[in-house]
C-alpha cells in the first residue's frame, strides 16, 4: 500500500515538474521581451521555477500557474538588476516595464515564444549551438540535462551556452519574428535545427546508445510547439508528421540485445498505430497546404506513411514509394535521397536493378549506409566476394555501435554456408 502511494507521489511530482517546465519556457520568452537579456531572464525564471516546485507541492498548484511564475520571475529579475547595479555602483542599465494591470493577451505570449525560437535558431549561430540553445531555452532542460542529451561534458556545454548567450547579447542578435520576405529562409533553418535534434535522438550518429528516447520526446514536443505557434505552415506539419511516423516504430526498431531490426523484419504489431494515424492526417493537411510546390518534409512524411500503412514489408506499395521519391528529388536533390530511391528500386524491380541505381549515386563514398546498401544487394545477387568487400568498407566508416554490430552480423552471414537470409521483399 505504502508502495503505491509512493508511486502516486512520484507521478504527481513528475506531472508537477512537467507543468513547471512547460510553463517555465513560456514565461522565459516573456521575460526575455521584458528585460531584453536572455541570461538575466533565464536566471530569474530558474529561480521562479525552483520556488514554484517548493510552494506548489506544499500548497497545491495556483489557478493561474503561468501568471504566478511570470510575476515571481519578474520580481526576481528586478531584484537581480538592482543587485548588479548596486554592486557596480551605478544606475541600472536594464529597466523592466511596470506590471500590466490586465493579463497580457495570448497572442502576445505566443509571439514572445516565437521570437525566442527565431533567436535561438539564428543563422549567425553554429548549428550545434542552435540545437543546444533550443534544448536549454525552448525545451527548458537544465544545462546538465542538455549536456547529457548531447553526450558532452557539462563544463563544455556550459561554456558553449554561455558563449552563445554572450554572442546574442553583444552582437545584438534580434529578438523578433523575421519579416515576410525573410521568413521562408529563416523557417527552413528552424525546422532543420529541430529535425537535427530529433535525429540525434532517433538515430544517433555515434555512441553506444542508438536511440535516446528523451531527446526524441523533446524534439516532438518542440515541433508540436512550432505547430501551435505557426499553424498551417507546411514544413512544420511535414516535420511533425515525419517525426511521429518514424517514432511510431520506436519499440520495434531494436532487438532486446540492442541490435537494430530492419524495417523488413520489424514486428508491425509493436508499431504505435495512434502515432501513425496522427502522422497520416498531418501528411494530408501538409499536402493540401502546399499545392504549388511540395514541401520536402511533407513528401518525406508521405514516404514514411507508405511504409507505416503497409500491412507487411512485401505488401509495401513500392510504386507509390518510388513516385514520392521522384517528387522529393524535384525539391531536394541530394545524394542520400538518391540512395534511398535506389534501395526502393531494388525492392520493386529486383537487386540487379537496385544495384545499378545505387552504383549510379556518386559522392557517398564516405557514407557507411551507401556501402551497406551495395553490400546487401550484392549479397542477394550471390556476388559474395564483392558483398564481403562492401560490408568491410561500410564497417570502416563512422556509425553508431548498434549499426556496426548489425553489419558485422550480415558479413558473418555472407561468410557462412547459407546465403544471407531471408532477403527482405522476397
Amino acid at each position: 500500500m505504502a508502495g503505491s502511494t509512493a508511486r502516486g507521489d512520484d507521478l504527481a511530482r513528475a506531472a508537477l515538474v512537467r507543468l513547471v517546465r512547460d510553463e517555465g519556457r513560456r514565461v522565459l520568452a516573456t521575460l526575455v521581451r521584458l528585460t531584453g537579456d536572455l541570461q538575466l531572464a533565464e536566471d530569474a525564471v530558474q529561480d521562479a521555477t525552483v520556488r514554484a516546485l517548493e510552494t506548489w507541492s506544499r500548497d497545491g498548484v495556483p489557478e493561474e500557474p503561468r501568471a504566478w511564475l511570470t510575476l515571481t520571475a519578474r520580481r526576481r529579475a528586478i531584484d537581480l538588476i538592482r543587485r548588479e547595479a548596486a554592486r557596480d555602483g551605478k544606475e541600472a542599465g536594464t529597466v523592466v516595464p511596470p506590471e500590466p494591470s490586465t493579463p497580457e493577451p495570448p497572442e502576445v505570449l505566443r509571439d514572445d515564444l516565437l521570437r525566442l525560437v527565431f533567436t535561438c535558431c539564428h543563422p549567425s549561430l553554429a548549428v550545434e549551438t542552435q540545437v543546444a540553445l533550443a534544448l536549454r531555452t525552448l525545451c527548458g532542460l537544465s544545462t546538465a540535462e542538455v549536456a547529457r542529451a548531447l553526450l558532452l561534458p557539462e563544463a563544455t556545454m556550459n561554456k558553449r551556452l554561455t558563449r552563445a548567450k554572450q554572442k546574442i547579447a553583444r552582437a545584438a542578435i534580434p529578438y523578433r519574428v523575421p519579416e515576410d520576405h525573410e521568413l521562408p529562409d529563416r523557417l527552413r533553418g528552424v525546422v532543420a535545427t529541430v529535425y537535427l535534434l530529433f535525429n540525434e535522438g532517433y538515430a544517433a550518429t555515434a555512441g553506444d546508445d542508438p536511440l535516446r528516447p528523451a531527446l526524441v520526446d523533446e524534439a516532438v514536443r518542440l515541433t508540436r510547439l512550432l505547430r501551435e505557434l505557426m499553424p498551417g505552415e507546411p514544413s512544420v506539419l511535414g516535420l511533425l508528421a515525419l517525426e511521429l511516423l518514424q517514432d511510431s516504430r520506436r519499440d520495434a526498431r531494436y532487438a532486446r540485445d540492442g541490435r537494430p531490426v530492419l524495417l523488413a523484419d520489424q514486428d508491425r504489431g509493436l508499431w504505435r498505430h495512434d502515432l501513425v494515424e496522427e502522422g497520416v492526417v498531418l501528411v494530408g493537411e501538409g499536402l493540401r497546404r502546399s499545392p504549388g510546390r511540395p514541401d520536402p518534409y511533407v513528401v518525406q512524411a508521405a514516404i514514411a506513411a507508405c511504409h507505416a500503412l503497409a500491412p507487411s514489408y512485401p505488401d509495401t506499395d513500392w510504386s507509390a514509394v518510388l513516385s514520392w521519391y521522384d517528387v522529393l528529388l524535384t525539391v531536394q536533390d541530394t545524394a542520400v535521397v538518391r540512395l534511398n530511391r535506389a534501395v526502393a528500386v531494388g525492392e520493386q524491380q529486383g537487386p540487379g536493378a537496385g544495384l545499378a541505381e545505387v552504383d549510379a549515386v556518386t559522392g557517398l563514398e564516405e557514407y557507411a549506409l551507401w556501402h551497406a546498401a551495395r553490400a546487401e544487394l550484392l549479397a542477394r545477387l550471390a556476388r559474395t566476394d564483392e558483398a564481403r568487400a562492401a560490408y568491410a568498407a561500410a564497417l570502416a566508416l563512422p556509425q553508431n555501435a548498434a549499426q556496426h554490430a548489425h553489419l558485422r552480423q550480415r558479413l558473418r552471414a555472407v561468410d557462412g554456408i547459407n546465403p544471407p537470409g531471408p532477403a527482405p521483399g522476397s
Partner: protein
Amino acid sequence: MPSYIALIYNADVDWSAAEHSETMAEYGEFGRAAAAVIRGGAALYPTSTATTVRVHGGKGGDVVTTDGPYAETKEALTGFYLFECADLDEAVATAARIPGARDGAIEVRPVIPPMQR
C-alpha cells in the same frame, strides 16, 4: 544602438590603381546608399606597405618592427567600415551590400561600447 566593424577581406591589390576605378566607384555608390548607418571606414593600401610593430620586454621595451602584414594570407584585410545598426540582422544585410562581399568575405564584429559613464 550597437556598433559593428565590417572588416573586408579580399585580393591584396592596390585599390588606388586606375584599373580598380570601377570597383572604387561601386564602393562610392555603396557609401551613399548606406550613409544612414556608416559611421566611418577606409580602403587600405596593399599589405606590401604594412609594418607590423611589437614591443619586446614589456612596457618601455624594445620596439621591433617587421616588414609586412601581421599574417600572410591569400586574402587580406583591404578595408573596413564602422556601422551603427539596430541589430545584427541589419549589420549583416548592410555588409552583404559591400562590393567586396562578392569576391571576398566580410567579417562583422560587434564593437565594445564606450564606458557608460
